[in-house]
């Protein structure tokens, strides 16, 4: 199983940015849309069902590349979501698609 075409399937949800559940079906992805059908955020869930990766497609704020990724550091007790920066400065990880 790769993070492309997650073996557990892809689940569309409607909601606000930041509302993805912390745990979900293992090896899945949730695509979060707003009420107008605009893709806001995607979340990838690992083998234990915990969210491990975010891709932000649309939100406010300053200068951002779109989309951009965040990973979840479950080893930290506050589970921070730092931005992903690839070895060549890229803002998304092509292993997640």
């Amino acid at each position, binding site marked *: 199983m790769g993070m492309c075409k997650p073996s557990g399937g892809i*689940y569309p949800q409607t909601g*606000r*940015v*930041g*509302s*993805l*559940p*912390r*745990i*979900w*079906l293992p090896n899945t992805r949730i695509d979060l849309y707003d009420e107008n059908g605009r893709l806001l955020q995607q979340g990838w869930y690992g083998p234990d*069902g915990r969210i491990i990766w975010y891709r*932000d497609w649309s*939100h*406010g*704020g*300053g200068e951002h590349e779109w989309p951009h990724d*965040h990973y979840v550091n479950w080893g930290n*007790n*506050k*589970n*921070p*979501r*730092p*931005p992903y*920066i690839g070895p060549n400065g890229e803002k998304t990880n092509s292993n997640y698609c």
Partner: protein
Amino acid sequence: MNNEKKYSKKCEVCQKTIDVDIYKQGKCSYCGWWNCFLNEENPDIIATPNLISLNKAKKLYSEGKPFEPDLNEFMEALHGYSEMQFKYNGVYYAVELVFYDKSEPKISLYNSQTKAITIFIDDEDFKNNAKVEGKLLKDIWNDTTERDWLQ
């Protein structure tokens, strides 16, 4: 596994029976608390989708107050999610962690109207010096609205 099936539990804050998913997660339609295992295992931390801790929510609920973060809680949420917002006098402001190198992240304050960005070196710098319309943010925090994950 049928993840469409509805499950029930008592809301961790108001104790009313609510619908949740298979992992006992879900927003309480009565008090607004997002029930989530992470908050239940760690009742003093802030974790999405909630902007305050479970214990703080219980306290506010018992006092009949809304689940709104104070500035310290907003900063804690920032360190968990990296991208936050608030609104003041009709203008949205983004507060974000910025990572220039491998040192500790800095904090940026972005005015969506003027597009101005101010950088702060750490939490204390931000809490003591961040200004909105010439006023210290810490002094007008109670007048801000839409404190949230960056929408």
